[in-house]
């Protein structure tokens, strides 16, 4: 099923584990070398920067090749465009298979670009020829990206497949009768819960180990969609928009209280479960969704100006994290505040420093703003998170 050499993929995982074990001082250097020798992986997968460069360049090549072909047919482009796109998609796909099977490219940027162009062109072409509407398009995206996931274990494609699936059920149930319309949120909640549970089960299957990263992406998405489908803001505004309820500004939706409860409790449940199970995904998604609670409440109840909320929540966050640091001075319940060994400190520090420069450096210039041609007015990082 997988286009890449499966043994090498498995060896890659073994090598990663061995490197981690070496970093934790569990195995010595000779053992690490022996493991690497006995588990070769001859993929061409350059480092992230070269990968980015190769991705961009391959993209340029394909873009202009398509342009060149389109130019040749420029007289009858309207009729030919759909067929041309499908043809080009298939061509890119053939190139992709060739790069993967004979040139052993694996996440090299070249195969990423070819995969996306092939899938995109194929979808665009079919879409152009057979105008199938929203539901059909979702289904089409779902099958194309599912194929890409199964054959190329691409993480972003798994995200696409999942979103297309959710979109399909959303459109199909919102277009049919009134009863289905009313329970759209619950349908989506059920689907994302189902996908999440499926991923949890699938992760334990030994054969699925090569799809572990795809499953992880899908689990994160499932949690977010699960919450989004029941979030008061999303439900109210979306159903207002889609089903033309024409709600007044402070009018509640039917079963509004239910969605309010959902909005408040789900993030807390995620975090609690995450702490219980020591599950990083649940904890992080839960923390993210806490922000969603605040934004949702603030949208409907204007109890204080934004800047006051920013100051108060800023102070609260600092106090909470200070408390956590003090509390976890010695590891408690299997949690520690210290870094795990495997993260690469230097790179993270550099990235962090650039983020700081980006978000904190909008110097509040005064009346000279035009003369000096820069610096947005209004407080460091006032473009904050709310």
């Amino acid at each position: 099923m997988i286009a890449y050499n499966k043994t090498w993929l498995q060896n890659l995982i073994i090598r990663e584990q061995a490197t981690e074990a070496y970093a934790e001082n569990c195995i010595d250097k000779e053992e690490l070398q022996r493991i690497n020798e006995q588990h070769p992986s001859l993929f061409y997968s350059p480092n992230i920067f070269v990968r980015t460069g190769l991705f961009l360049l391959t993209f340029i090549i394909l873009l202009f090749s398509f342009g060149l072909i389109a130019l040749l047919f420029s007289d009858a482009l309207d009729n030919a465009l759909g067929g041309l796109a499908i043809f080009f998609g298939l061509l890119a796909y053939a190139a992709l298979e060739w790069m993967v099977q004979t040139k052993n490219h694996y996440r090299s940027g070249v195969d990423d670009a070819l995969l996306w162009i092939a899938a995109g062109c194929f979808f665009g072409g079919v879409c152009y020829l057979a105008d199938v509407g929203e539901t059909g398009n979702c289904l089409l995206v779902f099958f194309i990206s599912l194929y890409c996931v199964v054959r190329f274990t691409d993480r972003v494609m798994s995200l696409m497949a999942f979103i297309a699936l959710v979109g399909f059920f959303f459109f199909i149930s919102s277009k049919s009768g009134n009863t289905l319309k009313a329970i759209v949120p619950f349908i989506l909640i059920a689907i994302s819960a189902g996908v999440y549970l499926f991923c949890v089960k699938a992760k334990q299957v030994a054969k699925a180990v090569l799809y572990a990263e795809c499953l992880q992406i899908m689990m994160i998405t499932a949690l977010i969609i699960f919450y989004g489908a029941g979030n008061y803001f999303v439900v109210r505004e979306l159903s207002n928009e889609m089903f033309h309820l024409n709600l007044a500004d402070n009018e509640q939706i039917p079963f509004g209280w239910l969605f309010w409860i959902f909005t408040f409790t789900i993030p807390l449940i995620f975090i609690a479960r995450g702490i219980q199970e020591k599950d990083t995904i649940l904890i992080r998604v839960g923390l993210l969704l806490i922000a969603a609670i605040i934004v949702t409440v603030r949208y409907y109840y204007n109890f204080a100006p934004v800047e006051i909320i920013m100051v108060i929540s800023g102070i609260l966050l600092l106090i909470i994290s200070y408390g956590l640091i003090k509390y976890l001075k010695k590891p408690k319940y299997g949690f520690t505040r210290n870094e795990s060994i495997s993260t690469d400190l230097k790179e993270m520090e550099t990235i962090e420093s650039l983020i700081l420069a980006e978000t904190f450096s909008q110097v509040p210039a005064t009346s000279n703003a035009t003369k000096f041609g820069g610096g947005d007015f209004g407080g460091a990082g006032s473009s904050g998170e709310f």
Partner: protein
Amino acid sequence: MDIKLFEKLYFAQIISANSYARVKLVTEKKLHSLHWEIKTLLYLGVLLLSGGLGVLVYKNIDTIGHQAILLFIALVCGGSFFYCTKNKLSFSNGKVNAPNSFFDYVLLLGCSSFIIFVAYLQYQYNVFGNRYGAATFFPMLVLFFSAYYFDHIGILCMAITNLGTWLGLTITPLHILNSNDFDNSRIIFTGLLLGTLLLSTGWITYHRNIKKHFEFSYTNFGVHVLLISCFAGMVHFSIIYLLWFLLLTGICYFFYRKALQEKSFYFLLIITLYAYTTLSYVFIDLISRIGGFGLGDVYLSFLYFIISAIGMVMFLIKTNKKFKTS
């Protein structure tokens, strides 16, 4: 770590019984790290607090409350710097680690609230009069000083962007292209100057061994500012653009050698992209000057992009191999 895997490796006699036991022990005792979660919370806390204070002060100008707010900002700023001075480890020319992760963010809070404070003083009381430069110069000094004194790369990057602002350039990573009017010879020459200044500072930092780990930040900002200014110069002074083209090629070649020497994939990538953009610009410019861009020229330029990009791919792959073997 996956115990089953190491069990297999142990049975295959690839790792010793001792090692297997260690893997088992470490995995069972493995602690769950909340390091990055806490860091993110701290970062968001500082971002929200300083952002909120900044807006608060501007919204409340001319009301009674604003002096209280100002006092609060001063207290936050003073308190942060007091905490940092008290807890800091002693200064050295090498890398000094922060005593804890809270420290870094308190320093960040201190610096950002200081910037707000100075900006407010200028806005309300015109402390620096009409010498607007002083209003950005002063915070910049404080930022540079804090970066070195407390050893904080993030603050250093803020200081560098502030230096840019003082000279009239926006050089934050995402705004460098769209916030500057590069069709202006003053901006272009300022950029050249700033880029050269940053690069030479980076060089001195490294070779004099003063906070060696700061070198990357200087060089990174320097390369981008210098190359973008050069490119802008090439577009702006279109009559003598070959001169700028030569300059750009020279700089790119210099950094290509440097990237090879240091085995830096990052610099290899950005140099390749800058060089490629420049080359494409010159090519398109040439054929539009000669042929006036008819249909034949369109074909030609499309072919150029396909062939040149293939060439670039091969170049990248080859250089990548060179890195690995040397």
